[in-house]
């Protein structure tokens, strides 16, 4: 099964039209613990594919508010709408990638200073999120920092 997943990852990377390696660090307040994941993120026309290679190979496909997870055990589909935090997370990374300021402005007040843009949530987003920080280097996305109201933190760094 592991071979199949790796094959899938290989083919996905072949077809990827905009793929980038990244490192994700999740700070979980409930556990007071950091979890680090590494992989590749690919933005398609309609979907986002995240291929984790560390700690375990897993493929996440976010398409039409549904999240499909493929790993060595098989695959499962989750309705992202039932999990607001996850839904916002995907919405933000898609909007940042697409530079969809209209979408971001619907949920955040943006303040930019140099290479750093701070998004302060408003309305429905403020119920879940505390702050989002986007750091760019030479106009390219360098890192994304998401502070969640429950004390959790997610940092995504784009690796060169």
């Amino acid at each position, binding site marked *: 099964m592991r071979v199949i997943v790796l094959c899938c990852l290989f083919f996905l990377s072949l077809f990827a039209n905009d793929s980038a390696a990244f490192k994700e660090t999740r700070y*979980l307040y*409930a*556990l007071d613990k950091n979890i680090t994941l590494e992989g590749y993120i690919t933005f398609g026309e309609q979907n986002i594919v995240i291929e984790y290679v560390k700690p375990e190979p897993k493929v996440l496909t976010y398409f039409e508010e549904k*999240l499909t997870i493929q*790993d060595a055990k098989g695959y499962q589909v989750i309705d992202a709408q039932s*999990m607001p935090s996850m839904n916002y*997370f995907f919405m933000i990374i898609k909007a940042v990638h*697409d530079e969809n300021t*209209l979408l971001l402005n619907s949920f955040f007040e943006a303040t930019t200073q140099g290479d750093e843009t701070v998004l302060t949530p408003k309305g429905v987003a403020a119920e879940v999120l505390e702050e989002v920080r986007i750091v760019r280097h030479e106009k390219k996305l360098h890192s994304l920092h998401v502070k969640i109201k429950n004390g*959790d933190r997610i940092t995504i760094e784009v690796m060169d």
Partner: protein
Amino acid sequence: MKSWTKTLNLLLFAIVGTLFFVYQNSVHVSTNLLSFLPESKGKEALEIYSHFKNSKEILIASEGFDKESLSHIKTIEEKLLASHLLKLESAIVPNATLIEYTKKNAFYLKNLNKDDQPNIHEKLKTLYERMVNNPYYTVIDANDPLGYFTPKEKPIAMSIRDGHLALGDFGYFSVFSIKDTSNTIESYKAVYDLVHQELKGMQTIRVFSPTFYFVENSQKIQNDVNFLIALSTLLLLILYVFIIRNIYLLINTIVTLATSTLLSFLLIGMIWSEVSVFVLAFGNAIGALAIDYMFLYYFYGHYEHKKGFNTSAFYGFLTTFGGFMVFSWINFPLIQQVCVFAMFSLVFSYLQFVFLFPLIGFKKAHPFANFTFSLPLPYRAIALLSLLAIAVSVYFLQVDTDIKKLDYQNTALMKEEKFFKDAAKKEGYTPILIEANSIDALIAHSNTIKNRFKNATVPLSYFFDRAFYEARKQELEALHVKEKKTLIEEEATKIGFREGFFKNAYNDQLLSPSYPNLELETLNAMGFDVVQKDGHYFTYALVKNSERGLLEKFDFAYAIDAKGMFLVALQKIMHQLLLSGALSVAFNAFILFAVCRKTLALSSSYVLLPSALILTLLGLHFTIIHLFMLFIVISFGIDYGIYMGKSNHLESETKSTIVASLISAFAGFGVLVFSDIGALHYMGLVSCIGIGAILILLMGRRSH
């Protein structure tokens, strides 16, 4: 004396015209067919439903899920909200009051897995592993670590794409409600104009609102009625110029008809606060019937020389007037208005044509044509065969109760409605009204409906009533979770959770909050549709059409359905309608026997043949309008039977009179067949068949 009488008609018109000019604004003309249905529970339900924002939502969808589409929908939202006429009813925007309520009563709003006896260590271990091993970011509920509670299922959940409401696979979706609660056509029109102004030129946008029917149909009906009145008037004018051929008489006839119509309109405006626009179209046609009396008097030379009382005209008037009078007792406002209008109009016209016109005096012109052509028609056989055809047709008669067929068929808007219903998966659902004498009972009823109808959408079932509250409270006490709290915290710390992370789990505020007494204002503030009327509270739900039959078991819920309501109203008045019909037929039969005993076959065929043809040709989709119009055709058919029976039918005056009457009846009633409005079209269709049948009979002569 003579000059005074010559101006009397114009004087009458001047008085009535002035009265009309002064009082016309006090008579409200309505295009809404539903407002002329009899008072009933269904009509009341429809009226209450019209106060819910759900009944007057404005749905806008922008095609596609790209940046441009999102930009379109956001711009539209901004522009429409800037007008302050509309409110955005987006499902993703949180309602602060509702969030507060949901947080406070979380353990009472979710499903409880009370049979689950969790192993605390296992449950917490699973939670830990989910957080650590799930490839996606996972949040846990610190208030319920043992997972006793699961959210209720939502049957028709709106999907969200890119943080915006989405309409299936079509595109982004926005739902607005109208702020103005007055439910007037003016407020709907203001919103209609605003929306269409803002959406002008946007190709990828689709829009619908039930309120658009009121605006578009009203305009269409108004235009249609105006067109028909103009067409009919023009046609009548041309015909009269050729038939009457006396300009002075023509002017007086027009003045008389105008006086009768205006006076009748003012009088019914005094009886009813709202007058149907259909009465206007019908009133114009009635004028065409009334002119028969003038034709009879004119062609028989009553206006030229002093002659005796014309009994044919009187009996003709009596049968038509009697027919309308019989039907005016039916408890159905639309029929009553039409009948009372016709009665007033006929009386005024008859009195003027019979008593005033001979005083004025008009020279008779030569008959416009000589009708010498005739066929030997077997009237007795026609009458008998027609009777047989009537009996067979009545046996196979199928009554069509769909009221929407009587209204204007706005196909463009109906297509948009279907598109949104299909996309939102609301097609096949019927709105129902739930009634209770308290809010608590209304919530209880809503939950009963929710539990009984599996596929129902019942907004108020989100809440719980006192009985549920007490029961859940006991269930929660039986779980003894408070006693488990120390163990949960100890185990959680051992597994790796932050110390004290679950200290607020299963706290007293969540386990036993005070019962939330919800007020009407609170529910409205939370965005729920609840209205109060006469000490009763109402809300709505949507149930699948296939499950509607189950509603009969509940005395607190009933369907909001114009078709069903019309059916009930029809059932209630059916016996009245049939009784009136029977009375009318009996009255006509009596007149026939009394006046035309010697020419019974001939005279009765003028009633039987039109009836037989109407029933045979249209009997498979017979609406209340067909039935009503059939009786009208019988009423004017009998007039012709009397004229033909009383005279030597070869006498050209009689035939001239009848041909003139028929042409004018076609110009009055027949033109209605060109209407796009079902009710008027059916009236026209029935009268055209009737007129055609009478014309065939007129071409005949008795076989000697």
